[in-house]
């Protein structure tokens, strides 16, 4: 007995020690990541914030750095993101509902789809760009348009939207669903009145985070040929366009010092858009959860 007690104590002490070590390592890793991020942001901020003014926000690109602006890229990004969301959100949520609520008998087909979705989420984005170029720009004849870009980006985020939505739908307790069925609800009514309201905050958050990835993606946009020098705003889904990452990329590759400042300012705007989207995700989630539970 006594021996065992001592043994237990020693074991507990050992555990405490390894827990402390783990805490320090994990904390250090986090600190390192945060410091690196902070340095990066501060550096960009110092380079770019003087350039952040109304003129920069409301001007088209120009050959002269001091007259250049981010307007067409910003509007192009917002436009393309809206279209992407419009395309990918309903399809992604629909697919998730289908996989979780209808295709519940696991057969080779549903397994095949599942494996493919998981794999697609890991495909490098440039491949989506090549697919978009071939399929939307050339075969469907959409040209280098906002629509072609949005379709490409929709393909890119679709697997992420589906996976996030499935996670959110799976959280809904089977007991709630059974309660609904027992009151004579059809499957669709149960999905609409019970599953979706409960899953919605999760679906929304996951999707917004997926769409915010669209904002930063440059590779597929370069592949489908979004241009950097656009001195007008897209007036239809078929007009040519540019987006922030491409504009930034273009400015960075110019020799003049002034364009370098423009690029830094462009990055700040990109970060601001990202931050606003994440804030929207958090806000919407809070709001819906409150409405559900009290």
């Amino acid at each position, binding site marked *: 007995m006594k021996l065992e007690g001592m043994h237990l104590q020693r074991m507990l002490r050992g555990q405490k020690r390894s827990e402390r070590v783990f805490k320090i390592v994990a904390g250090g890793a986090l600190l390192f990541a945060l410091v690196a991020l902070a340095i990066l942001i501060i550096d960009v901020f110092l380079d770019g914030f003087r350039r952040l003014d109304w003129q920069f926000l409301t001007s088209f690109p120009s050959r002269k750095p001091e007259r250049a602006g981010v307007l067409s890229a910003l509007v192009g990004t917002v436009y393309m993101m809206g279209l992407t969301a419009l395309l990918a959100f309903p399809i992604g949520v629909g697919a998730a509902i289908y996989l979780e609520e209808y295709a*519940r008998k696991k057969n080779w087909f549903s397994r095949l789809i599942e494996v493919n979705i998981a794999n697609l989420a890991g495909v490098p984005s440039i491949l989506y760009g090549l697919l978009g170029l071939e399929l939307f720009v050339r075969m469907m004849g959409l040209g280098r348009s906002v629509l072609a870009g949005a379709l490409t980006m929709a393909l890119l985020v679709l697997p992420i939207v589906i996976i996030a939505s499935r996670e959110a739908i799976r959280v809904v307790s089977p007991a*709630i669903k*059974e*309660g609904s069925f027992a*009151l*004579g*609800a059809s499957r669709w*009514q149960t999905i609409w009145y019970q599953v979706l309201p409960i899953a919605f905050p999760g679906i929304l958050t996951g999707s917004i985070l997926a769409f915010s990835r669209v904002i930063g993606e440059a590779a597929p946009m370069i592949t489908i040929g979004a241009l950097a020098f656009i001195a007008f705003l897209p007036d239809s889904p078929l007009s040519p366009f540019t987006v922030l990452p491409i504009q930034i990329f273009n400015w960075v590759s110019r020799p003049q010092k002034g364009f370098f400042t423009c690029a830094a300012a462009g990055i700040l705007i990109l970060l601001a858009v990202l931050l606003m989207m994440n804030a929207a995700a958090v806000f919407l989630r809070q709001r819906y959860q409150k409405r559900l539970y*009290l």
Partner: protein
Amino acid sequence: MSPVVELKEEQPIAFGIQDLNAWYGSFQALKNISMSIPEKRITAIIGPSGCGKSTLIRCLNRINDLIPDFRLEGQIYFKGKEINDPSVDPIEVRLRIGMVFQKPNPFPKSIYDNIAYGPRLIGVKNGSRLDGIVEESLKKAAIWNEVKDSLRKSALALSGGQQQRLCIARTLAVDPEVLLLDEPCSALDPIATGKIEELIYRLKEEYTVAIVTHNMQQAARVSNYTGFLLMGELVEFGPTEKIFTNPADSRTEEYITGRFG
């Protein structure tokens, strides 16, 4: 249909179950069950955990249709009609045969919306009519006095016993003919259990009640008829006092005297 088990009194039959076999995948959960459930009486299903009690009553409102690899053979007549007949709509079955589950499962909505959920599904839109249904159902389930001032509050804020009575009220709101209760008190404390038992006892005036329980005192207290299930088989079925005082099968006797289970 013919009543398979003779009932002592001349009570109309709600359910006639004949040669019911049920499987989850390749596992047979029910074997050759034949029994009759009388109208406006309380029928208890007892038996040790895992013997198929839930499976049996979940066949009665076709809620087990929703389990992907569930399959059944045999007949279940409700008021003379086979409920698994292709011409029968499972939704109609579930509207006429309500069910309350083991763990209270209120929807994460207000108390009012929980009760109004069923009526709204069948198209009741009129506000004052819904108000009436909500009030009446909550009164029938003996919870009106406790919640009448907080109908807009979340149902999740209620206590377990209140939640279970809310679930009963929610089921009554669609005006069913039968109430299936699957161990409705097993998650509740004795006081809440007492309230629900009292409620069940009153409900038989209007409804056919089938209650699953693994609490034998409960079966003896509230039910008129009792069926004893063991490993998927119906060992014995008959009037409750006969099952508890003079069982025909030795296994029933062993179970109710607490020698196993």
